[in-house]
């Protein structure tokens, strides 16, 4: 291994500066729950396959204790979450539980309580795993990601644009996710998250789904649906959303609309489940969530 040094920046600008020079081969660490096992696997496995020493990271830049990147608050009617906020903090936060329930549920479903005390929401997004549990919730919430780098400064992007390919995002070298902004659900907007895993804790999703719906009685005014573990990247089910819009929801409508989910997913076989299973479950869970939410709205 060639990790040369460890930097714990004092502020965000320090951090961005530390990440700015590609020659130092910086490695971003926050919770470390992805990067540390990956480093271990490299150490245990085939080091020659992991490329030359020169390609591997040199400076570890730790964002986990940067106050500017941590915390949960309200800003202009939006929920503002620092990217280095832990999953545990998000899952336990009353405002999140109340006003962004899908995100709270998604954060609560990541790994185990121990993992959630380290893992950060920014890390969950930046590693861009197709099964990142918070991604569907943030997709369904139409979240905005605040990015920062020394070179490009600050910019805000929609989460819908963030994932560009398998484990790839539009983050540029030296750029980090700094914060997440999402609308606080209010009035008739409801959010839900469901994870289908092989067990109830420390499981990677076979399928995960988040739905946000604005319901007027049983009429769906607007819906947003995010799915994970069913494509190379977390996806929005736009076709389902469009089909639901302004429809009065009953079981048949929900089932009919949910079928359109296949336009957006292209699941694969892996150790946990087959593509066929993921297709079945993605459609069926989307349908069930819509039915449940509509029923609840009615009552």
């Amino acid at each position: 291994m060639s990790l040369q040094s460890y930097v714990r920046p004092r502020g965000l600008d320090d951090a961005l500066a530390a990440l700015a020079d590609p020659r130092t081969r910086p490695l971003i660490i926050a919770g470390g729950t992805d990067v540390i096992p990956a480093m271990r696997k490299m150490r245990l496995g085939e080091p020659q396959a992991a490329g030359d020493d020169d390609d591997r990271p040199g400076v570890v830049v730790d964002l986990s204790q940067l106050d500017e990147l941590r915390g949960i608050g309200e800003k202009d009617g939006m929920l503002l979450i620092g990217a280095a906020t832990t999953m545990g903090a998000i899952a336990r936060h009353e405002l999140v539980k109340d006003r962004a329930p899908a995100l709270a549920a998604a954060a609560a479903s990541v790994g185990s309580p121990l993992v959630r005390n380290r893992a950060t929401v920014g890390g969950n997004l930046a590693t861009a795993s197709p099964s990142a549990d918070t991604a569907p919730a943030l997709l369904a919430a139409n979240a905005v990601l605040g990015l920062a780098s020394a070179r490009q400064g600050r910019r805000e992007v929609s989460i819908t644009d963030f994932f560009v390919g398998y484990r790839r995002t539009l983050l540029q070298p030296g750029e980090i996710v700094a914060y997440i902004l999402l609308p606080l659900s209010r009035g008739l907007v409801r959010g839900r998250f469901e994870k289908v895993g092989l067990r109830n804790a420390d499981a990677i999703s076979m399928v995960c789904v988040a739905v946000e719906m604005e319901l007027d009685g049983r009429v769906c005014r607007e819906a947003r649906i995010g799915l994970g573990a069913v494509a190379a990247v977390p996806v929005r089910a736009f076709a389902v959303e469009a089909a639901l819009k302004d429809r009065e929801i009953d079981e048949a409508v929900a089932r009919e609309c949910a079928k359109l989910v296949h336009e957006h997913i292209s699941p694969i076989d892996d150790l946990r489940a087959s593509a066929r299973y993921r297709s079945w479950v993605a459609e069926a869970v989307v349908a069930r969530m819509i039915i449940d939410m509509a029923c609840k709205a009615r009552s």
Partner: protein
Amino acid sequence: MTDADKPTKYRLIGLALPRHDALDKVYGQTKYADDFTMPGTLHAKVLRSRYAAARIVSIDTSAAERMPGVHAVLTARDVPRNETTSKFGQTHSAGGFEGLYRVLADKKVRYMGEAVALVAAETPETAAQALRAIDVVYEPQPGVFDPVEALKPDAYRVGEEDTNVVCSYKVRKGDVDAAFARADVVVENEYRVPFGDHVYLEPESGTAWIDEDGVLTIRASTQVIEHFRDVADILRLPHNKVRVIAPMLGGGFGGKEDITVEAYLALLAYRTKRPVKLTYTREESILSHSKRHPYVMRYKTAATADGKLVAMECELISDAGGYPFLSPWVLLYSTVMATGPYKIPNVKVDAHAVLTNNTFTSAYRGFGAPQVCFAYESQMDAVAAQLGLTPLAFRMKNYLHTGDELGTGYALESAVLTDETAERALAALGEPTKPRSPWEKIGRGIASGMQSYGRLVYLHDSSRSFVGFELDGTVVVRCGVQDIGGGQTSSIAQITAEVLGVSMQDVTVYFGDTALTPLAGTTTATRMLYMSGNATLKAARAVRDALVTKAAEMLDASPDRIAMADKTFRVVGDKDHSLSLIEVLEACASDGIPLSNLAQFNAPAREVKESANVEGQIHPDYTFGTHAAEVAVDTVTGQVTVLKLVAAFDVGQAINRLSAEGQLEGGTACGAGYALLEDVKMDRGRTVTCALDTYLVPTAADLPDVTTIMIESGGGMGPFGAKGIGEPSSTSSAPAVTNAVADAIGIRLTRLPVSPERILTALKEGQAKRDDAVSRRVPELA
């Protein structure tokens, strides 16, 4: 009144006493194998084959040997005796039950992860670099990965013999064909169960060194310190020059019954004359240690219309993996227990263990019983359904009782209370849970099981224990048990304290050391309480008798009138005369009366029958019990929530109530994991679930509370009438869960684990079949 409230004839036996080892453990003071360090320790690593089937063309270790900090690089040619026949901790010759143990692959690699070379170096990093510098040229072979394929005459030969069959057994009783012809209901199914990993929390670990007397000493996490003989044979050393010490283990479950790190450590320490340490990563553990046997099981079961079982035919094929290890023993267990706790006049069992190029398979909690229990308990439910009987009613008509014969012709001698366990287990499920949503289906299942405790009678098993008073009235027990976490030493302390009239805190148990503790055999086969408990009981009673005799003499009373309790000897009915324990001990010491005793307990024994026909008594005794489960199945995702789990067992006599309940709860939980989750997946011999994020075991969030019901018949062969429960507690748990799933969804899955995907697939196919049936029926109706 519950069982726990019954008045007891014992002072300590049966009480829920805190275990003496729990204190050290919960304060972080217990030292496990990897927690010891010695000055000057070298670090070992094992080079493992990347191929499941290959010839080794050449091994070049020269570059590794030249590396600074590398002290030894060993291959097969460096091992004095690379191939030994292990007796797996036994002393009696047991013919076909001795297994080839090859320390390092030589010429041929038989499974992926087989050890090829060993390195000892100053640091783990240097050792890892040295491994990479070893150049092994392999010539890959086609291999064979399916036991059914491996049975074919032209199959790739895994070993050196011209067959892949490790062993075959059969049981013949009555005439199954005639019975099938006459029966009212015949149900035939094929069942499959997967590889399983033990996932003891503590990976394999040990340190070896040469002590000041020149004795090669190995402190390792093992269930069998008596592998010291195998290690001595491998190094061609006298048996008395190798010592194995087992500290407290972080779990075993059968996975530390075979040799793991011991021989590697011994070879490296002997070569380098330095202490050498080796601890596996979890990945290396899963890759290299034994697995639970996958089985293919074809079952044909017949019953009369009035619900009497008349015939059972079973064909069992077990995947032994690359080397036999304990496969012949495991298969024998399966063969004997293939028909379960049922009285069946006509039985035919054919069983084969077959080599493949998969990871080798060996002991795992249940030892061949859980596989067949899944099959026969699935069959019982399937037959009951055909007969229109409830699962309980059908079973109640067919349970074995004391005096009834197994398929082998052995008539059960001890208490058999399966009926009571079944009724109570089912009753304990209580009111059925209501579905939480229209997508949820609730189901209930029961499964009864039988499981031996104690080793095969062929092995002439024995155990020894030394019990002695110190002059201050404290007690020392020396007993070579390995404590794998089930409270083995604590139970021995409790038995000793009961007999000698002292408290548990007064008893110190020295355990797990081949040099210092009398050999007690393996902590396997649910034998430790039975064997070492009896040996300890015998020794403690001898000590007590000697002291009571002396006290009687001193008190001028007859010995049968002396009561020994609370460190005092009293004459019964005489309040005025008593002696303190210390007074009697001092008197004995002055008179040269021993304050200690070394006792041996021998289990029932038989010579090995060479015939493949399995007849008569094979085990000392059996434990019987029933599990009950209630589950909720999510019909949208196929996910199962286990809502209730009950274990009802005749434990004979609980020694420590907490430990006994703990065994029942833990065994039941493991069975639920086997039913729903656990699956070591192999792709042409390559384990693809090599870590705990892919080989999943149940977390606390996946299980309900386990309700335990202990029936105490007092009819066991262990101390105070105890039966063994370590393994039985797990055996019938899986089929109880799968029977509940079948009850919920109306479809019986014949393959473990019953995963969400398998359930959903079955539901979809079932739906498709029903749709198909409806569409075909329409024209007829018209």
